[in-house]
């Protein structure tokens, strides 16, 4: 039991958000007599929120590195407009337009990065300026009009589905296959991690608990694809989104650059003095945000099958809200990509569920605002409680905890240990 508590303990906020999301889903599922989780509606939920979720991935990284980006809605609109112009007016092939537009987004992000990282203007100001600049430029390039007639392949990015293969089984075969592949991947990752931890003699969860957790993960994945397979299968944008979540989670949690982003957000001066090129990190994070904003803009245009001067209004606020609901801290250094996605789904399910129940748009806004405030308040409350337990000498009770006995052998084998034996020095006194 203590193991379980310890394992949960470090991730209370994350689990809290998952539970909150589950509760919200169950509530609306019950209230709407099962409409919420119908295949068509789940499919819609994914595509409707995809662009906000893409933005939320970049936004949580910006927030972790203690900045903010208010321009993403305008940048998304501008890039979406440019994509439409490239494809309809300049007659560029759709994939060339997509690549060019991603580069354009990265360039805009680099522009922000230049002012923030190298000139030292707060990101709030720089991106507020860009919010105005790119909204204006969107109107300029579109002449205030809507540009439609986009290539169908491009539109597939927003509202297409994966193609069907194999015999007619009543379910979408490819989607089910992808589900199976994802499940196998999850099992493989979990096993590998457990084996690696065992090899180092670290404490791992008891086997039944481990199996239960992996089984739960597999069940969730398979139920999810099963629902989608009953309709038209996995939307293309969901595939893009899952790939991005996987990529960025890996980047943030397992690579050096991810560590450095957290380090810069946690204490920029300490990071500098540890050899982190902090300006470059700020620059890269904002550049990346620009690129993801471009992607979100294209997905949105594809979904609407047109570029529209009013596209992307308030996207930045939804993305920021998703990041904070998902546990990011205003002061930087805290947050996760998965958290931001969960936060985005909380908002998305609230929107969708309330619409299904016929709640007016006025009340929807109010309720979403209250949810944002409540989520962050809950977080602050939790943190404050955690802090009361601290204070000088708080580490004392565990100070006598002996190191795990197996560790000694492991330690002895470490090739590059800089072992000093201060224990001896102090015992001579």
């Amino acid at each position: 039991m203590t193991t379980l508590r310890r394992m949960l303990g470090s991730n209370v906020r994350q689990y809290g958000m998952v539970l909150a999301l589950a509760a919200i889903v169950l509530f609306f599922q019950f209230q709407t007599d099962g409409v919420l989780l119908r295949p068509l509606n789940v499919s819609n939920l994914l595509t409707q929120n995809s662009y906000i979720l893409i933005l939320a991935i970049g936004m949580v990284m910006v927030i972790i590195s203690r900045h903010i980006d208010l321009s993403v809605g305008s940048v998304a609109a501008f890039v979406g407009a440019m994509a439409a112009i490239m494809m309809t007016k300049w007659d560029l092939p759709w994939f060339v337009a997509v690549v060019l537009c991603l580069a354009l987004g990265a360039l805009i992000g680099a522009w922000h990065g230049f002012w923030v990282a190298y000139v030292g203007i707060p990101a709030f100001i720089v991106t507020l300026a860009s919010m105005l600049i790119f909204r204006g430029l969107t109107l300029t390039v579109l002449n205030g009009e809507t540009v439609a007639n986009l290539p169908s392949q491009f539109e597939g990015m927003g509202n297409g589905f994966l193609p069907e293969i194999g015999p007619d089984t009543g379910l979408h075969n490819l989607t089910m296959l992808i589900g199976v592949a994802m499940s196998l991947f999850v099992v493989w990752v979990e096993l590998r991690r457990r084996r690696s931890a065992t090899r180092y003699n670290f404490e791992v969860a008891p086997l039944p608990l481990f199996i239960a957790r992996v089984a739960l993960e597999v069940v969730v994945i398979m139920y999810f694809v099963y629902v989608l397979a009953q309709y038209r299968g996995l939307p293309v944008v969901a595939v893009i989104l899952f790939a991005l979540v996987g990529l960025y989670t890996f980047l943030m949690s397992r690579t050096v650059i991810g560590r450095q982003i957290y380090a810069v957000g946690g204490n920029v001066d300490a990071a500098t003095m540890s050899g982190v090129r902090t300006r470059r990190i700020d620059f890269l994070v904002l550049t990346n945000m620009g690129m993801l904003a471009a992607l979100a803009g294209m997905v949105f245009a594809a979904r609407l099958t047109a570029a529209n001067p009013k596209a992307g209004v308030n996207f930045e606020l939804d993305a920021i809200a998703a990041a904070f609901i998902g546990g990011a801290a205003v002061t930087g250094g805290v947050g996760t990509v998965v958290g931001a996605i969960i936060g985005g789904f909380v908002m998305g399910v609230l929107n969708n569920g309330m619409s299904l129940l016929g709640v007016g748009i006025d009340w929807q806004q109010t309720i979403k605002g209250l949810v944002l405030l409540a989520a962050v308040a809950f977080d602050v409350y939790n943190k404050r409680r955690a802090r009361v337990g601290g204070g000088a000498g708080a580490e004392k009770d565990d100070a006598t905890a002996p190191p795990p006995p197996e560790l000694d052998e492991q330690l002895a084998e470490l090739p590059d240990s800089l072992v000093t034996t201060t224990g001896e020095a102090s015992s001579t006194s």
Partner: protein
Amino acid sequence: MAQPILEMRSITKEFPGVKALTDVNLTVHPLEIHAICGENGAGKSTLMKVLSGVHPHGSYTGTITFEGQEVAFRDIRHSEAAGIVIIHQELALIPELSIAENIFLGNENARRGVINWDSTNRRAIELLARVGLRENPLTPVKHLGIGKQQLVEIAKALSRDVKLLILDEPTAALNDDDAQHLLGLLKELQAKGITSIMISHKLNEIEQVADRITILRDGRTIETLDVTQGDVDEDRIIRGMVGRDLEHRFPDHTPQIGEVLFEVEGWTVMHPHDHDRTVIDRADLHVRRGEIVGIAGLMGAGRTELARSIFGRSFGSRIEGVLRLEGQPLTLKSVADAIGAGLAYVSEDRKSLGLNLLDDIKTSISAAKLDKLVDGLTVDENREVLVAETYRRDLGIKAPSVAAGVAKLSGGNQQKVVLSKWMFTDPKVLILDEPTRGIDVGAKFEIYGIIQQLADQGRGVIVISSELPELLGLCDRIYTLAEGRITHEFSREDASQEALMRHMTSHTR
């Protein structure tokens, strides 16, 4: 003797899982300066938080009697209203506001919410005179040095009719002159009717000003010593604090000094913003393999500036001069270059430059050389734990596991984490800036041991310290620094506190 001004009886304070204070008693007589001593984690700060209402009545057991009345403070405002003011180690002044505004912050000279600036400034001048600070009350606090800021804090306390003044490590960040001024001021205030409680690690200062000393250890009262009765010296206090005699405050050590490892020649550094102001002026110094070299200088002499400018130009502008490592010239354009070349710098400011307080022990230790743990694309987190465990064991970092947050560790343990971080980079030369600041006596001894071991492994170690006994006890050679210039070089045999101080204050220009 008269009735005590303060009596704390059987104070017990528990945090979840930890008993921070057990049955602690403290009696303070009117008009005395009462020192509280103890190692870090002994419960000094917790006791003061109980007294000042940070830990409100009901969260502890025991009784507090102040001026003959039993009191139950709800919060700091409540205790301040009763005349108890606490000045924390980290000053609570607002840098952009003026001295006068800071003094009367939260206690404004106002009628119906409108501030009377004339009376505010007049009263500020009176208060500044009382603390011996000759500054215009309209000066923003950010323009004052840390010593003067400390005086502003005391003026602020005086503005609130303080009866009992609590100072937590008041001289930790001060140079000797400012510290002496502050201690003198405490004596003056004592003569004018203010009782003080002072928490300090600097035993010579305690010996100098305190009338009585209460010693805490492991959350319990060990004893109260009466200085006026005589027979109380530093060794006596240390014995009470650590529960054993510390005959030698430095581990025995025979240096094994080799060839010249690291040289600095003609090092000249300008101020980072004011490009014509010389901060370091043609400094020459060198370190040999296995040698511990000290740099002694008063605050403002340029000690930290020298170290940080060498460490990848992380301070200053228009830097000139030559660095040589193992005879080869070094060009260091960034901290990353410096780490790559084999330099390490342990900052004097652990919390703002040394650690990310959101991190746990293992990520803190790997932060400066994460490349060493990279396996393909990813950081090998299992090996990271092993590495961190090695240091936890070898350096005796007291924590439940390497996944424990560094924010909750005591100063000594945090410093060990920072040292681990730099040891993990496997440096050839380490620059340690005030390595034992704010660390208790027992942990200091351990840190000294670590420093000596680092030297014995063939590294060069430079120690910057404002505590001269520390330099004399630890270093094989000592440079004195005054106004950005190296003024003298002492061998271990020639160095004495008096001689060092003479060259630290000599004006060469």
